[in-house]
């Protein structure tokens, strides 16, 4: 018995060809629900396309949970080869030089084709280091857009085909909607105090968020988001809340925001372009309109591009089997193919990360057939990006966003003015930046 087993084992070892010993490449991700299923499909198709490597996707919960799990695993020497990290964690990952295997380096080492100019410029700019090298593989990037309820607009006597262009127009329409009884509230937002309501507000209005080109220039950056325009904007949100025009959806991603829109309590809703599939699925009883984010015409007449959110794929150092890295590199090459990208982009509402995928979509006539599906792309590509609209990159940003959320809540419950709250947020945020700088300097 023992003999036959060992013989079989020897046979397997001898014939250790690709088909028997596909190298497993673990991929931790944070895509639940429909997005998770689609992600698994992408991995499966890659696995079916060749037999040497097997991508094993593992769902690890929310973005912060996934990042935390990956870091804990790294400390224990059990890290996955690939981990999906949201844009807020970019500062943390970039500072962790010994832990990360930069993608440009990986592709070069493994001899895979790699041409950064093929990617959309705003996406690539966000994930490059100071020398312009791409450190992580762009995967799912999105940008906030405005969703609105056409039926409610009509009921309130507004033209359902005309979306509000500015915040003032949005507030005006909101007032009409509330006073006419068409809906209980005008609009709500996800990431109301952070990604949508402060980071993108600052970018679109071309206002600085922090020094050192919003943190891109170095870890010694300080926050400057407490400018008079942002403060005025927060005061407006408070006034609009008191008038019933705006309703707060909760801190962070705003768990209540989407239900408020789906249940037709709020007529408009701002969130990631990747919420598109969810919005369409949930808006069974009403017609949805899509529009770019409103801009503040008291600050600018020429809105800048919006900034991206979403996540990229980071490769972690320390895999014992070096073949794993070869597999990861092959997988990234596969992911960059226009067909794969276009499929992912069109299904999920994330941005196409390569120019070729965008062009493919145009050729397929996808954007004409699906109204509003190219709003996000046009919004991030419009104009010339300035230092203020390239994005924000700071360490400890998860915690700092919590601080900003808390200060925003203090404005909404009337404890502070916009200026007081933003000053306090900047002060506390700067303290956290200094902690990060101290912990990561050599």
């Amino acid at each position: 018995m023992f003999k036959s087993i060992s013989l079989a084992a020897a046979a397997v070892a001898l014939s250790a060809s690709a088909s028997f010993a596909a190298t497993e490449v673990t991929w931790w991700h944070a895509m639940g629900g429909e997005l998770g299923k689609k992600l698994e499909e992408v991995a499966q198709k890659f696995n079916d396309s060749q037999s040497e490597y097997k991508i094993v996707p593992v769902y690890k919960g929310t973005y912060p949970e996934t990042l935390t799990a990956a870091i804990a695993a790294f400390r224990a020497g059990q890290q996955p080869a690939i981990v999906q990290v949201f844009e807020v964690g970019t500062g943390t990952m970039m500072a962790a030089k010994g832990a990360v295997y930069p993608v440009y380096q990986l592709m070069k080492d493994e001899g895979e084709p790699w041409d950064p100019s093929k990617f959309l410029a705003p996406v690539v700019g966000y994930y490059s280091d100071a020398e312009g090298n791409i450190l992580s593989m762009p995967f799912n990037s999105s940008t906030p857009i405005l969703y609105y309820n056409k039926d409610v607009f009509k009921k309130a006597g507004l033209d359902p085909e005309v979306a509000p262009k500015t915040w003032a127009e949005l507030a005006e329409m909101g007032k009409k909607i509330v006073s006419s009884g068409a809906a209980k509230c005008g609009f709500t937002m996800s990431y109301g105090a952070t990604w949508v309501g402060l980071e993108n507000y600052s970018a679109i209005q071309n206002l600085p968020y922090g020094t050192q080109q919003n943190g891109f220039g170095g870890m010694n950056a300080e926050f400057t988001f407490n400018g008079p325009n942002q403060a005025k904007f927060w005061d407006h949100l408070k006034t609009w809340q008191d008038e019933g025009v705006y309703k707060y959806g909760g801190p962070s991603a705003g768990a209540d925001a989407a239900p408020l829109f789906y249940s037709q309590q709020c007529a408009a809703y701002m969130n990631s372009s990747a919420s598109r599939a969810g919005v369409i699925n949930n808006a069974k009883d009403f017609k949805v309109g899509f529009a770019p984010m409103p801009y503040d015409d008291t600050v600018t007449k020429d809105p800048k591009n919006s900034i991206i959110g979403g996540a990229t794929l980071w490769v972690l150092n320390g895999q014992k089997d070096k073949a794993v890295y070869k597999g990861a590199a092959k997988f990234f090459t596969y992911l960059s193919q226009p067909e794969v990208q276009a499929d992912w982009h069109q299904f999920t509402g994330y941005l196409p990360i390569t120019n070729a995928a965008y062009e493919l979509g145009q050729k397929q006539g996808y954007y004409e057939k699906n109204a509003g599906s190219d709003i996000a792309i046009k919004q991030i590509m419009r104009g010339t990006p300035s230092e203020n609209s390239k994005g924000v990159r700071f360490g400890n940003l998860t915690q700092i966003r919590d601080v900003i959320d808390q200060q925003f809540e203090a404005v909404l419950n009337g404890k502070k003015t916009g200026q007081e709250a933003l000053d306090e947020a900047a002060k506390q945020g700067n303290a956290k930046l200094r902690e990060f700088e101290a912990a990561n300097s050599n």
Partner: protein
Amino acid sequence: MQTKRTVFQSRLLPYFLIAPQLLITIVFFVWPAVQAVWQSFLRQDPFGLKDTFVGLANYTRLLQDPDYLNSLTVTFVFSIGVTVLSMGLSLLFAICVNRVIRSQRFYTTLLVWPYAVAPAASGLLWWFMFNPSVGIIPYVLEHFGYSWNHRLNPNNAMILIIIAAAWKQISYNFLFFVAGLQSVPHSLTEAAAIDGAGPIKRFWTVVFPLLSPTTFFLAVINITYAMFDTFPIIDAATSGGPSQSTNILVYKVYADGFVGLNLGPSAAQSVVLMLIVVVLTVVQFRWIERKVQY
């Protein structure tokens, strides 16, 4: 078998016998605790690539941090709130059940049910009932002209987590109070009744003092519970918000360490928590066991 006596005389055997338990304690309690103490003196990046010994800097910063001082106050209010509410209600229930002659068991079973609900589920349950957009309670309160919103109103949020945490603990307290009430000799209450004391007077002057060991024991248990076991409820119901108004010490350790990846300061906080546990345990053993006797 013949060596049984000599074996028991050996000095090593007892240690050998408790070794498994000792090992578990060391691996799961002592070792992490020592690591936490060591980490609280370090400044470290999330990945553990760089360590700097900073001495007591994490502690001094902690004590100057307004958020931490706020968290102390919040924890105090919360644990007192939970203890008073849950002990008060369970005492009331225990007295009621104690007076019921029939179906006492039935009521007891019903009252013990919440104890079987997982804390996270209980947090979600209350979160759902109180949800400002879809919850039933804000909907009802609106008819009374009160606009409930624990997302923005710190008092609402505090009330929500106190109710959720107290509700979970009522079963436990109830069982102890019922047992305590049943051990109060009937002869005493009867004697008081004969002397003309009414039911309320009888309760406060005879029954309640006799319950004091139970009450004191439960007070310590409830405070410990509120301080250390309510993490899932807070996580599910408020996540420490709005504006840190429900960010109790335990939750803050998690938020700073596991979400914020700020390990040094988070370790310092858990060391402080450890000291609080030590104090509470000493109080429990020294004071309760000795002072409150009848």
